[in-house]
């Protein structure tokens, strides 16, 4: 399952929220989470991968979770996006 966000933070995705995303993804051992933007897909276990997407304000980002806890994982990641002021759900 997946959710798509629009980046609202003026700094784009910077180190602090990227750290929070990776830490959150790592909590769900049985589930793989990915970030996809601009035709590039990276694992959310890699902070360098997340930063390498080069996301800036206004960009669109899709978070994908696959595995037994995909529902919880994706909700937790969505919370980070919103609570860190990173982005808003693109519906």
């Amino acid at each position, binding site marked *: 399952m997946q959710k798509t966000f629009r980046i609202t933070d003026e*700094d*784009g995705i*910077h*180190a*602090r929220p*990227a*750290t929070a995303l*990776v*830490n959150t993804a790592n909590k769900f051992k049985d589930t793989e989470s990915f970030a996809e933007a601009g035709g590039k897909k*990276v*694992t959310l*276990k*890699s*902070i*360098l*991968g997340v*930063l*390498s997407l*080069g996301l*800036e304000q206004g960009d669109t980002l899709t978070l994908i979770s696959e595995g037994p806890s995909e529902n919880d994982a994706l909700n937790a990641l969505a919370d980070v996006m919103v609570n860190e002021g990173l982005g808003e759900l693109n519906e």
Partner: protein
Amino acid sequence: MSSIKGIAASAGIAIAKAFILEHPDYTVTHRKIEDTDSEIAKLESSLDASRAELEEIKARTLQELGEKKAEIFESHLLILDDPELINPVKDKIKEESVCAEFALNETASQFIEMFQNMKSAYLQERAADMRDVTKRVLKHLLDLNYVNPSEISEEVIVIAEDLTPSDTAQLNRNYVKGFTTNIGGRTSHSAIMARSLEIPAVVGTQNVLTSAASGDLIIVDGLEGMVLINPDEQTVAEYRKKQESYAEQVEEWRKLRSEPTVTSDGVHVELAANIGTPNDVAGVQDNGGEGVGLYRTEFLYMGRDKLPSEDVQFQAYKTVLEKMEGKPVVVRTLDIGGDKELPYLDLPKEMNPFLGFRAVRLCLERQDIFRTQLRALLRASVHGNLRIMFPMIATLDEFRQAKALLEEEKSKLISEDIAVSEDIQLGIMVEIPSTAVMADQFAKEVDFFSIGTNDLIQYTMAADRMNERVSYLYQPYNPAILRLVKMVIDAAHREGRWAGMCGEMAGDATAIPLLLGLGLDEFSMSATSILPARSQISKLSKTDMQELAFKALNLGTAEDVVELVNQAVSK
């Protein structure tokens, strides 16, 4: 016991264990290995060691500096665990039978390059984090013995070849009791920093780094310029006494704290302090400063990984202005470049950085950086008595351009209904000979001059003050310098402006009688020099000093000038 003579850079006496600060050589070579499994095990154990270090630094940073500063180390920890980094390194070791340090360096370089090529300035700056993490792991892989100065956790005396501005910015004042370096003079950054931190320092010792070992007991005598290595008990006892009597003298000076600075014939001059951060204001008040004559804003930009935002700057300027309670605060706009680098700006290396793209030259091109600072200053202006000065002005045109940007930002703020003070004095640093020579023209357009002697001397004498072999040319008392200073002061007075000095010369006991005689209005120095200077000035008559200065201007050499001053006044 051995003793080494150096240059007394910051007064006082410190006694503590030696901490050797050496920047290690991170060069790696392509080395073939046979046993790839044990090479991977070596990588793992280096990663573990790095992790343990980072956890400790993170915990301490959290405790001392708060959550925000600690977060950077959290992201470093994640980089250490990053499969996109570590897996390719392991693959490389296995597939190419190459040593771990080479594999790591190669892989990390790709990420560094990737960050550098990113569109967003913020992400470009992440290259610095990548470099930092890589160095930490390489240190273990190469078995290098290096502790970052920010990681010192006991009372020490730091011993180094030299201390760079970024080294000094990281020093923890609670633990660093003094320092001593092989190179440098009274005006090197490390010396200036020591005086602003009020820790004793001896620089230019030539060989203290090779003479002392980590853990040796060291006495730094910043009064005499002596360093003692492993002194015997009796010597330590003597120095403890000296430490006490120095503290007593400091007490004597303290009585002048709330007194104005007046010559014996009743002329008032202003003694102000040079500061680097809002924390330094406490020292200014403590030492009875009548203002801040130089607020070096570079430190706001150093020791961090991105440009400081307008709000971060606004808070810093506002804090200083408020704490100074209406006393004048001269803020120098960003003076970066030259030997003061900002890694995240990724400026190209230059052949002659001191003659290159720095200070206002950089600010006029990178207007984004400059405008942000000007806005922050203007917003802060309503919180005290703000004066702004531009560094490294070489031509009138540069001053006019910088002033125009300031005026633009001011109008913008006013149209946004943000309050801006109406009486902000605007001045320039006089540190380039062309500007000193043209001071009469500048004086028609600026509100004040502040003479930056450190650069003015090196540009006038064409001698790098950091280069030991030509350091003899760093001659503050050379009549050439005195004549330039006189031109600037006279030009200011003819137009009803004031002239100050914020170089090291302003606090120098030999220079003060001359500067007083030349008519200098404001002397800005390290906070700790203020009370001794006030005490000295109270014993000098301005009329006598005018005669003395007149004689000095007509002498041939710096030595003659020093002799003249020594004979005329007892310091």
